[in-house]
Structures are given as structure tokens and as C-alpha cells.
């Protein structure tokens, strides 16, 4: 069975979150994503089962310090080798960890799948099984509603278009296998053209996941800058102006402050960071290090400068968009030292220019959202990626006999069907009879 991964704690509010990986590759995956002193922790976990190992989670585009624990098959909930990661519980880190782990060979778990495996392996020990069943049911109906809402948009039609395209290829080839004589007059699809075309379309859809994630979880905004330039005031101003605080959690283990604000229907996940400066103070330097990491993985970095002083921005490393804010525009001696579309002048204390800034931050979402076809679920991305790999295999082996090429193509169709609920066999049989005049 494939190794599965899921976030096991509620997303968002908690300071600490748990990501659980179950399956035969669990430890191998841990070795590839979790490091102690620069070394993968595979061996350490093996020798220290059921013990917490402190180390660094190396995600795609972020790192986080935390703990990993290895539960060998005979000691785990699922009855399979399991590794749990205890990381900082923000949306970005939790999602990022799952996403990273899926690139190492795990697939996102279905609702209730950990329980299912526990049962299949004869390991389930539940005091109230009925309660768990109700929970699975509730989760799945919530999932169904969410999926249904998603399908209202362009995604459903995009996937259906791709599947139709693939189905035409499939049905024609399958019909030629089941009706070799009747199909002699029909033109067989040129795999050389058809498959790369399908592949490109699946790729495009998979890429929309990034924007889809923003639609679901909001824009991760990091406010950075030197100490005392007004970062905290700006955070308060952004939240206050919009009067839409959802949560306001002071990190107990961290020196960052997070808050959420809604601007024009887009959720901003705001993080205030420690001022960037060299420091001999241990606590402060850890804070700075954390700030740099937050900057690296942000969707938007709001770099705040004191407009009354003669300073220019430092170079920062980030994969997100950078917006420069010259604060204290209400004060004497204020002047912005740079200009451009991404430069704003505000007064955090007086609330001047904050609205305009908020809209600019939120527009990161809108810029990407010109196309409404958004893939929002990690599970769907995983299905698309699996389909991609099946199609790629088919292209690579297109000179094998048709019965083999069809194994990959049917598999690809079934992966896409995981999103829409369609299955290859029934669709193919229906399609053969609707498209071709076969049968005696």
C-alpha cells in the first residue's frame, strides 16, 4: 500500500501541529525531509523508536525546527511504520510539510484512511467505533460539499475537457482491441500528438494549485524591516482598518505575532517579525533567524522603512512579492527614498495610506486569479501529479504494444477520475458504443 500523509491536528489556531506519515516508506521519507546536524534522521529514528528527535524539517521553500518520532509497525496506530512530525502549527508550515512529503513518494490520505489501515492491519483499538464512523461520515460530507462548491467553477469543466480528450484516445484504441475487424476503417489516434497535448493541459491545471491554495488559506504576508520602523503599528493598522480580526494569537514559543484580516474577500495571514539587525542577544538573534525564514517563504513581504531616516532597503531572499512601505509620512522630514509600483507611503499611527496598501497586498491573489480554474485541494494536486506521471510513462513507452500503453492511459484516466468520480472501464465501454458503429 502506498505511504500516506496528512495533518493530524486542526489547522490554523494551534502553536504546534502534527503531520503524520504512515506506510512502508515512512522512515525513508523522514530521512529525506528531517535533518539533525545536517544528516537525515532515518538511522537515528530506527535506533530510537518512540523517542522524540529534535531537528530541522527541510520543506520546499521553508525550514522549521521541531521533533520527529518513529513508531515501528508493531507499535503504531495504523500497524504500519509511522513517523510523526511536530512542527509549528501555522497553515503555511503544515501545508508545506505535507506538500514536501508528497514529493518524496507519499500520497495525501483520504478521509478515515488511517483508521481504515489500522483495521486492515488488525490494529484498531477504539473504545467507541461508532463515534469514529460518525466522524468519518461528517468529514466526508464536508469534503463532498467543498468539492461540490469547487466543481461549480471552471475546474470541473477543465478536468472534464481533458478527460474527454483522453477518453477519445482510450475508446478508439480499446475499440480497436475489442472490435479489430469493424475498426479497420477507423483512423487510430496519433499518440505522438494526442498525449503531449493532454499532458500539457494536466500540467497547467496542476500549476493552478498555488493560486488555489491562496484562495483557500489566504495570502501569507510577512512584515519585515529594521527595529522600530513601525512594523507592529502597521500590523495593527492593517487589522484595525479592516475590522476583521479572525484570530490574534501571540506565539508562545515564537517571537512573531500573527493576525488575520480580510480585504476584498481575500484573507491575509499577517506575520509581524523581529526587527532585522545583528545582535549578540541570543533570544533576539533566534528571532531574526526566524524572521529571515518567514520572509523566504512568504507570498508577500511588506518591507517597512522609516521615511524620516536616511535608510535604503537591504537585499532580502524571498520567493514572494516584495512591497516597500515608507512609514511615518505624517512626520516632518519624511521622504521616500525609492519609487515604483511597489512603493507605498503610509502613516501606520494615523492610518494614512493603509487601505491602499491592503488592496495592493490582496491584489497578489487577484493577479494570479485571472483564470478562475483553481485547484484547491492537496489530494487533487496529488491526483493530477499521478496522472502526469502515468501519461509521461505512456509517452516514454509509446512503442510498446497497445495493450501496455493502455495500462498507463487507463491509469491516468482513473487518477483524473478521482477528482470527478469517473472510472475508466465504464466510461470507455459507453464511449465505444456511442462513438463507433461496432457489433454484429
Amino acid at each position, binding site marked *: *500500500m502506498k505511504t500516506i500523509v496528512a495533518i493530524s491536528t486542526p489547522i490554523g489556531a494551534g502553536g504546534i501541529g502534527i503531520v503524520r506519515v504512515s506506510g512502508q516508506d515512512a522512515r525513508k521519507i523522514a530521512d529525506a525531509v528531517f535533518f539533525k546536524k545536517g544528516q537525515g534522521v532515518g538511522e537515528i529514528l530506527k535506533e530510537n523508536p518512540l523517542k522524540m528527535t529534535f531537528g530541522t524539517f527541510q520543506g520546499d521553500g521553508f525550514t522549521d525546527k521541531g521533533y520527529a518520532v518513529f513508531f515501528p509497525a508493531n507499535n503504531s496506530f495504523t500497524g504500519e511504520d509511522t513517523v510523526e512530525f511536530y512542527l509549528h502549527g501555522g497553515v503555511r508550515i503544515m501545508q508545506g510539510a505535507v506538500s514536501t512529503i508528497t514529493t518524496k513518494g507519499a500520497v495525501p490520505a*483520504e*478521509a*478515515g*484512511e488511517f*483508521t*481504515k489501515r489500522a*483495521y*486492515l492491519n488488525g490494529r*484498531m483499538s*477504539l473504545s467507541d*467505533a*461508532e463515534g*469514529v*464512523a*460518525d466522524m*468519518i*461520515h461528517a*468529514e*466526508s460530507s464536508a*469534503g463532498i460539499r467543498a468539492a461540490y462548491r469547487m466543481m461549480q467553477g471552471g475546474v470541473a469543466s477543465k478536468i472534464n475537457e481533458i478527460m474527454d480528450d483522453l477518453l477519445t484516445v482510450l475508446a478508439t484504441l*480499446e475499440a*480497436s*482491441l*475489442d*472490435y*479489430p*475487424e*469493424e475498426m*479497420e*476503417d477507423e483512423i487510430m489516434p496519433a499518440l505522438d500528438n494526442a498525449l503531449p497535448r493532454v499532458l500539457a493541459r494536466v500540467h497547467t491545471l496542476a500549476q493552478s494549485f498555488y493560486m488555489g491554495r491562496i484562495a483557500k488559506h489566504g495570502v501569507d504576508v510577512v512584515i519585515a524591516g529594521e527595529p522600530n520602523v513601525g512594523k507592529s503599528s502597521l500590523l495593527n493598522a492593517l487589522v484595525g482598518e479592516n475590522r476583521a480580526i479572525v484570530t490574534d494569537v501571540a506565539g508562545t514559543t515564537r517571537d512573531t505575532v500573527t493576525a488575520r484580516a480580510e480585504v476584498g474577500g481575500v484573507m491575509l495571514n499577517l506575520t509581524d517579525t523581529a526587527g532585522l539587525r545583528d545582535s549578540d542577544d541570543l533570544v533576539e538573534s533566534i528571532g531574526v533567524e526566524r524572521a529571515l525564514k518567514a520572509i523566504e517563504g512568504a507570498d508577500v513581504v511588506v518591507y517597512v522603512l522609516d521615511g524620516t531616516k536616511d535608510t535604503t532597503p537591504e537585499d532580502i531572499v524571498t520567493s514572494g512579492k516584495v512591497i516597500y512601505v515608507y512609514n511615518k509620512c505624517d512626520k516632518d522630514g519624511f521622504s521616500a527614498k525609492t519609487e515604483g509600483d511597489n512603493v507605498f507611503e503610509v502613516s501606520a499611527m494615523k492610518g494614512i495610506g493603509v487601505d491602499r496598501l491592503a488592496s495592493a497586498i490582496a491584489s497578489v491573489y487577484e493577479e494570479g486569479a485571472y483564470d478562475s480554474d483553481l485547484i484547491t485541494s492537496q489530494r487533487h494536486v496529488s491526483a493530477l501529479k499521478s496522472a502526469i506521471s502515468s501519461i509521461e510513462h505512456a509517452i516514454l513507452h509509446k*512503442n*510498446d*504494444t*497497445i*495493450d*501496455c500503453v493502455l*495500462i498507463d492511459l*487507463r491509469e491516468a484516466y482513473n487518477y483524473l477520475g478521482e477528482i470527478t468520480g469517473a472510472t*475508466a*472501464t465504464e466510461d*470507455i*465501454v459507453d464511449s*465505444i*458504443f456511442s462513438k463507433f*458503429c*461496432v*457489433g*454484429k
Partner: protein
Amino acid sequence: MKNTFDVIVIGAGHAGVESAFAVQRLGKQVLLSCTDFGTVAYMACNPAIGGTAKGHLVREIDALGGEMGLTADQSLVQIKMLNRAKGPAVFSLRGQQDKNHYHEIMLEKLRSKENITLVEKEAVEVIVEEGKAKGVRFSDGYVAYAGAVVLAAGVYLNGRIITGDYVLSSGPSGYAPANGLTDNLIALGLPIRRFKTGTPARIYRDSIDFSKMEIQLGEHADRFSFMSKASTFEEEPCYLTYTNEETHKIILDNIHRSPLYNGSISGVGPRYCPSIEDKVVRFMDKSRHQIFVEPEGLHSDEMYVQGMSSSLPHDVQEKMYRTLPGLENCRFAKYAYAIEYDCIDPLALKPSLETKAVENLFAAGQVNGSSGYEEAGAQGLMAGVNAVRKIEGKTPFILRRDEAYIGVLIDDLVTKGTNEPYRMMTARAEHRIKLRQDNADMRLTEIGYELGLVSEERYKALLDKKAQMAEIVKESKKTVQKELAEEILTKWGEPLSRKTPTLEDMMKRPNAVLEDVKSLIPFEVDDEALNSVIIECRYSGYLEKEEGIVREQKRLEDKLLPEDIDYFSIKALRIEARQKLDKIRPLNLGQASRISGVSPADIAVLIVYLQKMNR
């Protein structure tokens, strides 16, 4: 006349015959009834056995000790391996048969078996006591008793033959229908439906001008049965001709006279067996349709016109057939007709083919909503085996989808049901790379031997083949002589390799030819064994992947669902899932997961429920 048997089989078509042979092989006494001896193993439609997916079924029936393959080999007129260029998973044998000879051989075999009592009687009632089938009452008053009954009534239940507005109460080819049994089945609680199928006209051979058609010859191919030796037989050609615009015009001008279009047929017809009027109406853009003209038998006076099935009135049939090149002056021996019949909704059956409503009553073949001789034969064999196992108190014999096409066929019928006569297709077998016709014996003969279906002789043949394959596999790791390898690779048009290739490397080449591979092996090898090794070797990557998928699925198949489970009490299941599960009553979680309307979340709920029950 004796009136006590172990099993009674109603109907002696392709399902009933295999059923009776299976019961007999298991050492039990069987009463086999038919309305007319002429209907025994009668090929009521095309004079051919096998074809895509159906050829696989014949080989599987054969691997389990059944008669269809052997009898087909003995009555061949022509044989072909279809799909040779498309890969070993879809290689399929198709034989043209002498249909009368096929019938005669089967009849003789039945009569030669002491344990089989073949009678010409019409069954009118299945006798049921305390929910169990106990025997059968026949129209002449005769009553027979048995531990189990197999219903294999084909298309004879309330059969109606229709051409235009002419409707005749009849079975196929003028044989009498069986009108007495349906009411009894309904009373027993079996859901009855009305299906429809059809057959083309038979044309007198001497009225056809074959010079205007393309001749179609057979080839030197394998035989259906693993036990048949490739002996010679007298061959007969088939012919190919086409419909044309004039044919289509006649059909469209008279379409109002078709019972399918004027509403006098209510039965559901199969999409894969369309009448010519169906094809013309649905595919208006096609300017012609292929028509194969096949002999009904060696030197038979009648030719079967494949592709021209129709329910139009006789006068229209004559006009349209005569538009075909070669048939301008044709005379009709039999007109084409549509036939409507009663059948059981297969969702009312267990995977053992026992009915859910009546214990010890089994059903097989077209009466279960399937179509085709091969589909019928496969079900007949399984029903026969399971009838015997039931009276012996043994667990039913069920083949999984990854073990056999037979498994796919029965699982599809009893899990998904069907809204039209069900035809086997390779597209339905998701594990088809495993379910090849070349390895049917490797998959099933050992199982058949353990069940008691397979003779010592056949079992020994399997062991020999396995031993040979092991020898070849051992040899395949060795390198072959370099010069010889290069010579052969050049001949195949394959690039030379830097290292001296092993025999395995040679077998993996896409253009490898069996004869040349054979010349590289220093001992005598059987073609069949070598062929299987080459296929397994060349497709090892795909086969391993498939194995992984099968292993995963098997974990669900191994989790059994209790028969008496009350799905309506499991509130966490969605309502639709509760209803479907209650109706179909799957044997295990794997089968449950294939029911349409049962979601993965419902399966998770069932898993939890099972866990709770087990403690």
C-alpha cells in the same frame, strides 16, 4: 423413470451443458432437461466461437476441465488469432464452427456419460420447501427431486420472435418457447426483466455470387483447448461484402415498419449487437457497413450474414439484402428476426450464482442477462460446481477479477447488474495483462484439479509445461553465443548490443521471433511454454506493477461482510449506500467498493463497523 438426482439442470444450451458436465465430473448424478434435443448446445446465432475476450473465456472454461474448447476444436471450419499486432493481453482466438457438428458432438458426449440423464421435457415449476429448491415439476406431470437446481433457460422464457408487425410465440429458430416457468419464478421472488436480441438471415449458398465478395481465409493458429493437438481439418472460407447507399435508403424508407421504431418491442437490446437498421439510423454519416458471409457448417447449404441482423418485415429484408454485392439474387432459408425473452436481474444472484431468494437454486447463462455462448458456458460451469459444493456443505467457488475473465463476468453481473444483454469485452478486465489466453492453464488448471474438475492427464500436462518454463527461465540467465546472437539480431532488424546478450535479453527484444529464440536453446522446448516465458519476460515491468495493484485490492477482498448484516442500522452510511448494500449484499469489502453509489467514505464506515462487530 428414476426421480432422484443430486442436481437438476433446466436447459441444455451452452450454460446447461457445461453445468451438467461439471456436476458429472464431480461424481454426482445430474438430470439435464431440454424442450427439444435439437436445442442441445445449439448455436442459435453466429457459427463462431471465441473472438476478443470470448476466446479468453473459452480457454478458461477449458483450463477448468470444461467441454467448450475441445468441442469447438473438433468442429472447426476456420481459426484465427485476432489482434496479433496489439499485444499478448489481447491476443484472441476465434473459430468458425460447423454448428451442427458442434451440437452433435456435445449431444454424443452427454449421452456417453453415465451420471448424466438427458431428457426432452419442459420445466414448469421449481419445487421449493422451506426456502430451499428441492426439485422440478415438468409439463408432462413428471417430478424430479434433487439437492440443487440450476436454471439455464437461455432465451426460451416467454420467447417472442418479431419481424415487422408479425409476432410469434417461439424460442430461437422455431424451437418451442418455455411459457410455464416465468410465473413460478416471480412467485419465488425473483425479479424478472425483458431483454431483446436478434439474428440475421440465413441465405442459400447456391444463390450467392461469391466472386463479388472478398474471400477471408483462416490461418494456422493455436487451438482453443490446451489438450487439443494442432491437427488438420477441412477449411472453408468466409466472405466480406458491404452495404451501400441503396441498402440504407431501403432501410430508412421502411423504418416505420420496424418494431423497434414503432414501439411493438419493449425489451432492451444490446448496444454491441445492433441491428442493421440501428446502425444505419445511429451512424448516418457512414456510407457503408461491413458484412461477413460465413458458412453455417462444412458444406452447409446455409450462409450466415453477419452484420445484417434485423427485425424489419420479410419483404423489406429481401429488398435490402439484395442490394449487397453478391447477394443480388439471394434466396432466404431463414429470415432475420428479433427475439424478446424473460430473464432474471442478476443483482438477485450471489457471486456463487445461487439466487438470493431461493437457497440451492442457481442460475446461469442468458437467463442471467448475459449474451453469448462463451459467457453462458462459463457461468454454467461455475453454477454446476457451486451447486455440488452447496449440497456437500462446502464454501462456494468464486474467481476474483484478477484471476479470470470468468471472475470479471460474474462480478460485473452480480455487483453492477446490467441494463442490456451483457457481453464480455477485454476493456472490462482491468487486470487484462495478467488474464491472458496463453496462461489460462497456469491460472486455473491447478485450482480445477483441486476442485475435482480436471483430469490427471490435463493436470500432468500443466506440470510438464510449468517444468519446461522453469527450465527455460533458468537457461535465460545465460549468455548466448555472440556471433549467433548478432546474426539473429540483424535478421530481426534489432540493434546489436555491446555485451554478449543473455537469452533473456534476446527474448525482451520487441521484434523477437519465437523460432529464432528456440534455436538459441540447447534443448527441446514446447512452443507454448516458450511463448509464455517470452511474454512474461518482455512484459515483466507491467506485470509487476499489476501485481502490486492486485495485492492492494486483495486486502479488501479478504475482509468478509457477514451475510446477516443490517445495513439500515448503520446510520453513518449514506442512505443510497444503505439501500444498495442491502440489495446487493456483497461478500466482502472489495465487492462492496465496486457497487455504484457506495463511496470510499462508506467503505471506511463499514471497516469501522466490522471492527466493532468483531470484538
